[in-house]
């Protein structure tokens, strides 16, 4: 599953202490992002969809998936039936199948309950950080996963979303503060992070076009579903040889996409790295 993505071995295998220090430094950048994004999610969930702080806490604990939680704001505002929201959430989070499969070999010797908890805490960021950490270390380190999943992602996300929803309660005119544009801006920004080749680009453009077209012909509810189903089908029409896939989701290469920009810039300068 990771054959296309293992072309960038580390310059040397780090000691455990060195690798963990690097993990913590990389994690700090993710924490900043998670706090900021979590806060605006809480704000938008409160002001746009009317979620109470309890609802926001439940979303952050039970769903714990930024893009899906944000998307649910749009679904609720659009009046989608809850079962449809569940199905769309499942589709949106289907990429976790790829992360889960990629992490499975490392967790193979761990007890069932540990793998079950690890699964619930699996996010883009936890996958990215722990995969990069394991690569630097040259072996699987459970500490890397739990640190990334709980300390870097879950705790900051939970408290930031709660803070956003509590402050959102006191905002009477969200449009004046520009809060209404947070939702579409977050959606388009998250989509950029998932576009790793021509197939994804085609799926994204067609998804948007079909979504708008069908929305105008029927309703936004139907349009969003149509875009989400038709977009990927059209994306698959791009032949694999022409897809220019750089970092398929679930591979080690995709983990690099979550690094801080300055880290990416430095890596580009290393001999043998692709531009």
């Amino acid at each position, binding site marked *: 599953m990771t054959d296309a993505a293992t072309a960038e071995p580390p310059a040397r295998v780090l000691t455990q202490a060195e690798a963990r220090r690097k993990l913590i430094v990389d994690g700090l950048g993710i924490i900043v*992002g998670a706090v900021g*994004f979590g806060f*605006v999610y809480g704000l938008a969930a409160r002001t746009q969809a009317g979620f*109470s702080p*309890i*609802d926001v806490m*439940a979303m952050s604990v*039970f*769903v714990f998936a930024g893009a*899906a939680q944000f*998307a*649910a704001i*749009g679904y609720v505002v659009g009046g989608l039936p809850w079962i449809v*929201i*569940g199905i769309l*959430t*499942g589709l949106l*989070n*289907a990429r*976790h*199948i790829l992360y*889960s*499969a990629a992490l499975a070999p490392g967790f*193979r010797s761990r007890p069932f309950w540990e793998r*079950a908890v690890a*699964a*619930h805490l699996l996010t883009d960021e936890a996958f990215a950080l722990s995969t990069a950490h394991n690569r630097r270390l040259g072996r699987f380190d459970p500490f890397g996963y739990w640190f990334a999943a709980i300390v870097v992602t879950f705790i900051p996300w939970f408290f930031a979303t709660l803070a956003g929803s509590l402050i959102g309660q006191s905002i009477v005119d969200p449009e*004046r503060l*520009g809060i209404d*544009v*947070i*939702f*579409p*801006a977050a*959606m*388009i920004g*998250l*989509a*950029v*992070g998932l*576009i790793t080749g021509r197939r*994804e680009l085609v799926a*994204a453009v067609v*998804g*948007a076009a079909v979504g*708008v077209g069908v*929305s105008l*012909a029927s*309703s*936004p509810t139907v349009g*969003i579903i*149509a*875009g*989400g189903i*038709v*977009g*990927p089908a059209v*994306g*698959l029409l791009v032949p694999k040889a022409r897809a220019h896939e750089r970092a398929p989701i679930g591979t080690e290469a995709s983990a690099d996409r979550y690094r801080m*920009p300055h880290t990416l810039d430095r890596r580009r300068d290393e001999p043998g790295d692709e531009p």
Partner: protein
Amino acid sequence: MTADYVPLALIMLAFTYPSRALGLLNPAIERLPERALDYLQLVGPAVLTALAAVDVMVGVESGESYFTIGLPWVSVGACLLLVVWRRNLFIGLAAAVAIAVAGRAVGFG
């Protein structure tokens, strides 16, 4: 304080957990057809852009959908460009909000 959407969170959990657990609890996932895995990889970008585009371009009044152009186009467009350029979602969101606030302060939107 209400808890109206807690059941929705549980429904979303029911649809999210299986995809997270499939590989970790049952490695049989690797036996899924490659075409199915490829399709799953494309769902995220398509759903997210559909949500963004419909939110910005489609309005609804009295149950009728209509095409709309306005300040959110500029805000969301700026966010898109910044995220592509800087690979930093938070900067993009901050710019989108700043443009919306400034635009409305001078009478647009």
